[in-house]
Structures are given as structure tokens and as C-alpha cells.
């Protein structure tokens, strides 16, 4: 269980997180949504001890992130950050292998290699395994980073906008794989998404953040309503029922009344 208790954070004089209380039980997929600058990445970074806590506490299975040894935490929790920096000149296989570092310390065992092969396979990277990371497309690189995070083999996986740069096929494929991971291996997955429909389709719970606070929290059925989405995003989002699935139609469409996108 990830337990976040009255966490606040001020950055450059600006309140970025405001007394966040959140408890994420083990298992399942939780989607974190909300406008740009809402504090989603900041919250994940705090949970993954990449930023120091200023106020409040965060524990992972009872282990406080602020005082647990880095190595112990690295086996419990893996994070994919929104921005992973310039790619090093290493092969895809090597990069995914770095995910095993908390277990192998660099000396890969047969088990580590097996896990890497499995990660490559799961995210359809086997054909790219020998390619150098700095010669891949943005989406291919993103999938490598996801595979590396997965290879870490932790119970908790935090993914900050993993669908960035992914095409329709791979975005769908990733969500399916995450669902399988959660269902078959009991991993706890927290995923930041901007595509609310992906969140509604795959997540068990959607948490919306706005201005450093939790704006809404509930099952997809509860969140996928025009008035709830409007409170989060500031414009009326039409929600339709499509084959038993709630679908938000946030798109700008030509030939439709413009008032959809801007209230009066």
C-alpha cells in the first residue's frame, strides 16, 4: 500500500502540492489525470524519493520513502519519469538490463537475463534489441524506458505519461500489458494519463488533480461525467455511451457548434 499523508510542497515560492492525503491499496491500476501543472509529476517524484519531502509523509508497504535505503526501495518501487533526458549510446538490451541493477548490482545472473528477455518480448522490442538507443524514434525509446521500468521487477510501478509519443497501436498494447500485469501478477500500477478514455478503459480508479489538490477520486463510471470532467478541465466534455463504454468526446470538430469548447 502507498500511503500519502498531508503532503505539501512549495517550489520557488509557489504551492505545488497542498495537503495531499491519498492511500493506494495494493493491486490494480490507478490513473492520475489533471491539467498541466496540476502537480502529478511532483507527487510521483516525491513517492519515488526523487524529490525531498517538505511536509507530510509517504510510505510504501510501511517503509517511509524518506529514510528507507535506496536499494531496498528500488526493489519495491520503479518509476518511469516524464522526461528521461538525452539517450546514452547503449543498446536497447543493455538499457533494459540497467533496470535489473537493484538486483544484480551490474553482474547479471541467468534470472536477470531471463527477466530482460521477457521485458523485451512483452513490449515488442526484441527486434530492436541490438539497436543503439540514440538511433531510435521517440516512441521506440519511450517503449524501451517502459520495458526498463518493468524489468526492475518491483511490486509498485509508477508511470508518468508512458503513452507519450506512442502510436495508437502501441498505446493500446501498453495499456493491455499493464492490465495483464495488474491482473496476473498483482502489481500495483499508478499511471499518469492525459487521454481520459484510456484511463476510463483500463484503470480501476481515476484520481484527478488540479492546482496541487485532489479534485476528484473514484471509479471510471463516477469520473466519466460531463460535470465532473468540466470541474477538472474547465470546459464541458461531452460523454457518450459507446458499446457499454463511457467515452469522452473532447475533440475539436469542424462543423459543430463552437460553444462546445467555450461556455458562453
Amino acid at each position: 500500500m502507498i500511503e500519502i499523508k498531508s503532503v505539501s510542497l512549495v517550489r520557488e515560492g509557489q504551492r505545488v502540492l497542498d495537503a495531499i492525503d491519498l492511500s493506494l491499496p495494493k493491486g490494480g491500476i490507478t490513473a492520475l489525470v489533471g491539467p498541466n501543472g496540476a502537480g502529478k509529476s511532483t507527487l510521483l517524484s516525491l513517492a519515488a524519493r526523487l524529490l525531498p519531502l517538505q511536509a507530510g509523509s509517504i510510505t510504501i508497504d510501511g517503509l517511509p520513502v524518506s529514510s528507507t535505503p535506496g536499494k531496498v526501495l528500488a526493489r519495491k518501487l520503479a518509476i518511469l519519469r516524464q522526461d528521461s533526458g538525452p539517450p546514452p549510446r547503449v543498446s536497447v538490451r543493455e538499457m533494459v538490463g540497467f533496470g535489473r541493477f537493484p538486483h544484480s548490482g551490474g553482474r547479471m545472473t541467468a534470472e536477470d537475463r531471463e527477466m530482460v528477455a521477457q521485458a523485451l518480448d512483452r513490449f515488442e522490442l526484441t527486434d530492436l534489441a541490438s539497436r543503439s538507443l540514440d538511433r531510435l524514434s521517440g516512441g521506440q525509446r519511450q517503449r524501451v524506458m517502459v520495458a526498463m521500468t518493468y524489468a526492475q521487477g518491483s511490486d509498485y510501478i509508477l508511470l508518468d505519461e508512458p503513452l507519450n509519443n506512442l502510436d495508437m497501436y502501441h498505446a493500446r498494447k501498453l495499456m493491455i500489458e499493464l492490465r495483464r500485469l495488474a491482473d496476473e501478477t498483482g502489481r500495483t500500477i499508478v499511471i499518469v494519463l492525459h487521454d481520459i478514455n484510456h484511463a476510463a478503459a483500463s484503470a480501476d480508479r481515476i484520481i484527478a488533480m488540479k492546482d496541487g489538490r485532489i479534485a476528484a477520486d473514484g471509479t471510471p463510471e463516477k469520473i466519466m461525467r460531463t460535470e465532473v470532467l468540466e470541474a477538472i478541465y474547465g470546459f464541458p466534455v461531452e460523454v457518450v455511451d459507446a458499446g457499454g463504454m463511457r467515452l469522452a468526446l473532447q475533440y475539436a470538430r469542424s462543423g459543430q457548434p463552437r460553444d462546445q469548447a467555450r461556455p458562453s
Partner: protein
Amino acid sequence: MPEITPTAHRRAIASAGLCLVLLVVLSLGIGVEDLSFSGADGAMPLADLLSISRLPRTLAAVLAGAGLAVAGQIMQTLTRNRFVEPSTAGTAQSAALGILIVTLFLPSADLGLKALVASGCALAGTAVFLATAHRLPPEQPYLVPLFGLVYGGVVGAAVTYVAWQNDLLQYLDIWMNGEFSGVLKGRYELLWIAVLVVAAAIFFADRLTIMALGEAQATSLGLDYRRMTQIGLVLVSVMSALSVVVVGLIPFVGLVVPNLVSRLSGDNLRGTLPQVALGGAILVTGCDILGRLIRFPYEIPVGTVMGVAGPGIFLWFILRERRDA
């Protein structure tokens, strides 16, 4: 770039090793005195000439080259910037300041004490550089080497001023211009510590590779980033200080070699660090040989040769790669 397999690394290491052996043999054979077995006409006997002068000189070049290239690689990992090395980050200049202080206050100090104080000063100077470099905006990677040049320049100017005030400019010249002609048996042995530096770097290779992914990524993989930074700082400072104390500053090795190896063999240091060490040894030994041959029987200091050859090789390599791309 095709995948760099362990086999490719081994092949690169083997050919670099062979190249180094050839250069070492060449280096042992070059000198004003002809190698002759007779030792007639008052010439130094072969064995003595080799063991007192040529061998120490060659070993010094190999050790300093390997150590400095590895130090450059570590420096680039610590700053996450490919364009810094100890001589452009104030490390070497701080080391010179250390030697100057010892020379001023304890003129009778031996090389070991000088090296120790120089290492301490290099450590402090580099820590200041690193702390500042980490505050520079990462979107502008050229600020780090630029700041390093300015910072090194300021420390260097302070050293020159103090040396000038105390009539020590001629010593300063020795420290700031790498040269192997003065290397004799009994005057270079401290450089063997370079072997320890290289060995330690290879021992930490996996951790350094992870470190190069950035503080956040390294931390989330469970690496103690601060601790590794401290270890890296010590390795870089000790190596730079040793080199300045024993043979003087040799620029560019730490910059050119890691960049070439990265382009040829990638960034997984487990495979590439031995290549970096060998490459550094080859470059410095090669430049020393050149310096002895160009105006034979006179010598050009290795620092000067490197000042021309280093950037030259670097440019050639970058331009060649652009044409291929």
C-alpha cells in the same frame, strides 16, 4: 551503430593493447643515445639506459595517459557533460596551487607530500566546480565547459600571481606543461597509483554507467548518487594531482579519448573503460614519441604536442563521422 557485443569490446581491447605494445617498444628505442649492447666509448650500457631513463619515461607516459583518460571519463560522468575534463574544470590548476603551497611553506617536502597536498587542493577545487556545474541549467550543456574554462582560468591566474610574487614562475612552467624528458628512475613511481585509479574505475564501471543516466534515474535504480559522486571526485582529483606533480599538466587526453571511445564503442563503461585507459596510454605515449622525433635530437614537450594533436584528432573524428552520417 551496430550492437557493441562483448566480443566487439574484446576485439577493440586486443587491438588497442597490441598498438600500445608497439608504441612502448618504439618509445624504448628512441633517444639521443643509440641502443648498443657494447656500452663502448663511455656510452651508458643498454641495461642501465633502459632501466634508468627510457623505461621510466615510457611507463610514466603509459600510466599518466591511462589514468588521465579514465579521470576524464569519470569527470564527464559526474557532470553529465561530454565536454569537460580535469584540465578544463579547475582540477589541474587547483593541484598546481597545492604544489605551490607546499613549495612555499615546506621547500624540502618530497614528491609524496606534494602529491598529497596537491590531491587535497584538487579535490576542493573540483568539488566547487561540480557544485556550481550542477546548478547550471541542463538545457544549456555548453555552459558547463564554458564555466570550467573560466574557473580553471581564474584558479590558474591566482597560481601564476602567487608564483610570480615568490619568484617561482620557472617551477610553475614545469607543472603546467607536461613533459617526460625529466622522468628518471626514482622520480616517477608515484604514477603507479594510476593503476589503482583505473582499477577502481573499472570496479565501479556499472555504477558509473548508471550514474551517467542522471541523478533521478540513478536514484530510482537504487544507486547512492552522492556517495558515488564523492568516490568519483576522489579518483579524478588524485589522478590529476599525481600527473601534475610528476610530469606536469597534459591537456586534452581526458577529453579526446572518452569521446572517441564513446563514438566507437558506446557508453556502457563496463566494456569501454579498459578501452579508454588503453586509448589514453596510446595517445600520450604516441605524442611523447612524436615530440622526440619531430626536431630530433631536440625535444618538444608532450603537453605541446598534445595541445595540437588532441584537438586535431578530435576534429578529424567528428568531421569524418558527419560525412559518414
